């Protein structure tokens, strides 16, 4: 990841309460210029409140928000160098598309010729050339969203704020808009700050994400960091699918560690050290695609993983359910402890899905570098 030069939005210990409910709890992080940044979390996690505080519609009870290094905490929304695409699009129904797009320029006092030129330019940018005369009720939902995009971008904002931009679109259009939004962002070079509850959306579009839960910032990082190196059970569980085991740190050296889990027959072997006191409770998370399935015969000895001591990181089980998804199959396997876990296997040839049947005994195996260790 390239380290961007300058931070464009900085949250400093931002807290927002509604009565007794803490919507945003002491959040600090910054967003760099040119990023496509996603605020991700379940509904009610405070991500929209955070976005609205950047726009100026909500004020933090504590802390500061800086845009371009300037404290804007007390700046009203109409004096901030950011523009927003609302979840409902909020296109003015009584104005033509062109008047909608030019509204922000009229407010700035831009001359008529210049205003019309820039409005047309913005409409072309979102592929709505020739729609200027139309009224919003003559447009589809997707087109109205493009008007909202053009209306915000025409102001040349420092940051474009997008509140759940894809939630109201149907599945196919959503896929297309994901792609178009990333393209648009590269084209105009404006920093995008997007709020979404959809982890696929965030992973696919964003260069960096902040995951929030109950007002607390859980983790900030690139999509692959969040997926492969989650810092908490919440992030591991919220992003993608995961098999999680509670365990006790039973051995911890600089280059190896062992975690004893009640639900597994042998301790989990790791090829790296863990920062934690011996005997402390922690969790390991293994993604389904990082678990390998092998056929097992009755009375057969455990196969050995080459990067682990004999018997470690291999577990016996029985397949209980198979979901064939075309490109891959999801196998639900019961361990001897009764714990059910998921393993994912790509169907690399046209006969791969026939390798395993329901109720078949199998070995589950993973590499020593695959489990993520979670302290909280």
């Amino acid at each position, binding site marked *: 990841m390239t380290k961007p030069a300058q931070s464009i939005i900085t949250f400093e210990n931002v807290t927002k309460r509604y009565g007794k409910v803490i919507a945003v709890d002491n959040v600090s992080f910054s967003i760099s210029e040119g990023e496509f940044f996603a605020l991700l979390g379940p509904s009610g996690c405070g991500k929209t409140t955070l976005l609205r505080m950047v*726009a100026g*519609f909500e004020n933090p009870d504590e802390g500061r928000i800086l845009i371009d290094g300037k404290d804007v905490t007390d700046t009203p929304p*109409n004096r901030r160098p950011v523009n*927003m695409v609302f979840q409902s699009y909020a296109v003015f*129904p009584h104005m033509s598309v062109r008047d909608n797009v030019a509204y*922000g320029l009229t*407010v700035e006092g831009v001359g008529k010729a210049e205003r019309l030129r820039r409005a047309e330019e913005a409409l072309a940018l979102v592929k709505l050339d020739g729609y200027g005369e139309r009224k919003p009720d003559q447009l589809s939902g997707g087109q109205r969203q493009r008007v909202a995009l053009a209306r915000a971008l025409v102001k040349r904002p420092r940051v474009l704020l997008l509140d759940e931009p894809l939630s109201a679109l149907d599945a196919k259009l959503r896929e297309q808009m994901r792609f178009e939004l990333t393209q648009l962002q590269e084209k105009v070079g404006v920093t995008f700050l997007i709020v979404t509850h959809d982890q696929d959306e965030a992973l696919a579009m964003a260069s960096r994400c902040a995951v929030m839960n109950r007002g607390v910032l859980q983790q900030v990082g690139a999509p692959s960091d969040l997926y492969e190196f989650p810092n908490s059970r919440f992030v591991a569980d919220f992003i993608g699918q995961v098999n999680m085991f509670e365990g006790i740190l039973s051995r911890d050296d600089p280059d190896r560690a062992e975690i004893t889990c009640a639900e597994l027959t042998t301790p989990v072997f790791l090829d790296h050290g863990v920062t934690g006191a011996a005997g402390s409770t922690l969790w390991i998370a293994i993604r389904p695609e990082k678990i390998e399935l092998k056929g097992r015969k009755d009375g057969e000895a455990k196969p050995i993983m080459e990067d682990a001591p004999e018997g470690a990181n291999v577990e016996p089980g029985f397949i209980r359910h198979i979901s064939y998804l075309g490109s891959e199959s999801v196998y639900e396997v019961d361990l001897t402890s009764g714990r059910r876990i998921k393993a994912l296997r790509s169907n690399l040839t046209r006969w791969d899905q026939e390798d395993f049947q329901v109720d078949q005994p199998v070995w589950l195996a993973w590499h020593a570098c695959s489990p993520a260790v979670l302290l909280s």
Partner: protein
Amino acid sequence: MAETVNESWKKSPGMFASLLAPPTLFLFAFLLAPLFVVWTYSFGHNEGLTEITVDGTFANYAHALNPLYLSILIKSFAFAAFTTFICLAAGFPIALAITFAKAKTKSWLLLLIMLPFWTNLLIRTYALMALLRTQGYVNGFLHIVWNGIAGVLHLVHGPALPAFQPLDLLYNNFAVVLGLVYVQLPFMVLPLYSALDRLDRSLLEASLDLGAGHLRTMVQVVLPLAMPGVASGILVTLIPSVGAFLTPDLLGGVDSQMIANVIERQFKAANDWPFGAAISFLLMYVTFVAIALQSVFAPKKEARS
């Protein structure tokens, strides 16, 4: 949905008729039929004290267009227009305040707006008279303030004030307009409120977000989108005001009579029902024109996202 309703009446016409018949009969017997009788009277003349002969004459309408009555009709519209204007000017901020009040405060404010409906108009008008008359509460309060100022001036050896002269607040045009505003204000506030309350808040936020101030947002976003509410508010304020009868009768002076007072006098004191009927229908025609104009200016359909 609309289609199934349209279809269902064809399938069970008996059911449809049995539901429709009672209200239709009621409307016909107690509204349309009497109106028709009065309408025919307007083309007749008195025969003796109690008989009316309908002979198709337009004399009553010609009489009604006499400058004396025409000027009263115009004055009625002027009073009503002025009343409507004040109601709109006062009602819009009130409706805005209710719209943006907190949920709990909002229901209390709406209750306050509707509270006058629970009291008879006559009683409310007499209450207004008690406030406005020469010895009324307003003048009484002003008198106390006046005396207080005079006392202070006396203490500081300032100039002596003349004796308090009570203001003429009752039995004039001022009292009529005040009374009409008092009666009609809720009818203006409620449609305005319902139009403003339906407004998508994010539209206002979008306007602010695009750099507009509150005033520009109000003029360019809120007002145009509240126009249907403004139009119906004007209509439901203007029309009853034009035909107001009780308010000018009780609060007005000698030159404050409105068209409804003239009509009332024709039916009662003057015993000239044909002429009263003609003025009534003249008023109704003018009102119809006003409604027609409103429907022309109202948006064809509500644009909602």
